[in-house]
């Protein structure tokens, strides 16, 4: 049952099960020009996935269908189209309860349709990975990029990462399984990206070799029993908790909810070495900082280039993991900032809300700029916001 015992052997497609760190950091990388959807397919080709469940919704349909081709070629154990996202996420749960490594993708209305499943996944400690290619939530009907749905995911108990680029995506899908499946974590992971901007654009991605794959999932390293009747069935409890209004019932529910959140926090020690930290920073000694996640980071970077040309120094914090939230990291990175600009692709400004909640002197946080409903955020909009902050005479700014 030891997953390490298969390292170096080949699967039925002739791919070599490779030690994860070796696969991520030592295996040769080949640059390939692909769409984000194709990158998802290439990651799954190398992820030793047992079961994938698919359902069409723009902008993830293409990726989900491409993964079906992988099944037809024999790279994925089983693959099916579910009947709705609610059913899909339950099918994923069933497969994970049965000890499979499970993959699925969804977006916008699909994410919300599925919702009751997500806290259940976390509570049942199922290390399922779902790719969320964010899009608008009705009404009115929209298929355009918008990251509002991420804010709903934040309190499910799942790990939530927000990819900026297709390269992030490729690496994080593979690394995500390794973090999710650690016995002291064993939680589902939502790898989010901004739909279209990442899924439907082409970029040069450095891929690991196609003949190397992750070692398979070992369900017997789970902190809860795998439902396959290969280990003794136990009478789980004397009185079903749902029946009892008593201290034991309250304590069990309360402590399990805490344990799920604690497991999410424990994921840090596995995530940090793989992702190179929960955040990435540039020039955080600057007095103005942009804190962003997803493609807002790319737009922020462009804005910084324009501002540098004006002689204005602006730093950047790229937030990679939203759950666990990089509280200490952001506190450290923002400690010298006079102004913290949080550009976002949604109407509510959930990232600004998160940052405001954890730093001192949180009136430093400038909520926005925001775009929503599918609009792009030209870097000039961020530049303008920063000009406004300066013009309002808020603080003395160091040029340089």
């Amino acid at each position, binding site marked *: 049952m030891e997953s390490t015992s298969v390292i170096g052997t080949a699967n039925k497609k002739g791919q070599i099960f490779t030690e994860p760190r070796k696969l991520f950091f030592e295996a040769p990388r080949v640059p390939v020009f692909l769409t984000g959807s194709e990158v998802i397919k290439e990651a799954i080709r190398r992820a030793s996935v*047992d*079961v994938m*469940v698919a359902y069409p919704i723009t902008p993830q349909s293409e990726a989900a269908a491409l993964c079906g081709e992988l099944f037809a070629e024999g790279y994925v*154990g*089983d693959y*099916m189209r*579910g*009947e*709705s996202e*609610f*059913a*899909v996420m*339950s*099918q*994923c*749960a*069933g*497969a*994970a*309860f*049965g*000890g*499979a490594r*499970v993959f699925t993708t969804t977006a916008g209305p699909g994410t919300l349709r599925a919702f*009751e*499943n997500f806290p*259940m996944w976390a509570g*049942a400690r199922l290390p399922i990975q779902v790719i969320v290619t964010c899009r608008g939530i009705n009404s009115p009907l929209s298929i355009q990029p918008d990251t509002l749905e991420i804010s709903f995911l934040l309190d499910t108990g799942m790990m939530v990462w927000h990819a900026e680029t297709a390269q992030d995506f490729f690496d994080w899908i593979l690394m995500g399984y390794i973090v999710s499946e650690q016995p002291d974590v064993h939680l589902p992971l939502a790898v989010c990206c901004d739909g279209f901007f990442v899924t439907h654009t082409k970029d040069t991605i450095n891929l690991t070799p196609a003949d190397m794959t992750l070692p398979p999932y070992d369900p017997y390293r789970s902190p809860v*029993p795998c*439902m*396959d*009747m*290969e*280990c*003794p*069935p*136990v*009478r*789980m*409890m004397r*009185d*079903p908790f*749902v*029946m009892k209004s008593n201290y034991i019932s309250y304590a069990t529910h309360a402590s399990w909810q805490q344990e799920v959140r604690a497991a999410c926090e424990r994921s840090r020690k596995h995530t940090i070495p793989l992702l190179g930290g929960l955040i990435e920073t540039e020039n955080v000694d600057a007095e103005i900082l942009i804190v962003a996640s997803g493609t807002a980071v790319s737009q922020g970077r462009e804005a910084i280039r324009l501002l540098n040309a004006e002689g204005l120094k602006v730093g950047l914090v790229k937030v990679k993991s939203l759950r666990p939230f990089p509280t200490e990291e952001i506190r450290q990175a923002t400690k010298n900032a006079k102004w913290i600009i949080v550009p976002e692709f949604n109407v509510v400004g959930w990232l600004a809300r998160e940052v405001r909640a954890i730093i001192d002197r949180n009136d430093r946080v400038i909520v926005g700029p925001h775009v929503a409903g599918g609009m792009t955020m030209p870097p000039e909009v961020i530049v303008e916001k920063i000009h406004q902050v300066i013009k309002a005479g808020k603080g003395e700014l160091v040029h340089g």
Partner: protein
Amino acid sequence: MGKDKIRINEEFYDIMPPEYRELVESGTYGKEGRGWKDMGSSKELIEEHSLCAGCPESMAFRYILASLPAPEDTVMVGSTGCTSLVFPHVAVHNIHSLFGNQNAIATGLKRALMVRFPNKVKDVVVLAGDGATVDIGLDMTLQSWFRGEKFTTICFDNELYANTGGQESGLMQKGFVAKMAPVGKKFDKVRLPEIARESGCQYVVNMTASQPGKVEKVIRNAVYIARELGPTYVQIYTPCILEIGKQSMEGLQEMRDSEKPTERFAYKEYITDEAKAYLADLDAKRKAKATAQLAAK
């Protein structure tokens, strides 16, 4: 899983809970020809339950667990409702996740088990209430049948939402006055057995739990057929004595009254020709084996 998997280390024998020791000593995992007659002489796979005293669900549950052909390799899927009060006491792996998603869970589970154990039979059996099967979960019930998923669906039909206090359900009889049906239910009892037949089920039975021998036969058939051919559906009347105003000892009579030939739970069976041939083949093999064993003696 064989019985060897539940053995107790001798050092720890005395500190193991007595019910676990009994399970190891006289549980019927791996017993050929197990059935309801083992009840009383061997350890049942249901420890106890917190259903109302005399609730026919408890009888049906015990008969079903006694009748599963291979509990050592069976995983059950439940749903929210009165049955979810029993599952925590059941000694086969079982999953409760949400209300109504049981056939979706079973779909993923069965597929995972087929991927992980390609050379082994792992049975999946769903057991859920009528609200779960027919109302909130109908979509997933039917879709699993359309797809021909290879597992058994058992519905404990008590004709109402018992666990939430007796509200109207799709399987409730027309005219019945219940919570949320204050002037009586306006539409007919949903004909799920017929729908099951049209939706691709290989074997469908409508019955009550009054006769353990009958339950045993039906459950065994349903599991065997699902294993090889496709979905099977068993709808069992397990009256909610609490909500229909019966006493603890009246459940059995209520089932008997409702299974009379003209009543709604008269025994009805549908089986495809393929499934019939398969059962006949199994039977012939069993007989041949018994004859060979006799001859060897």
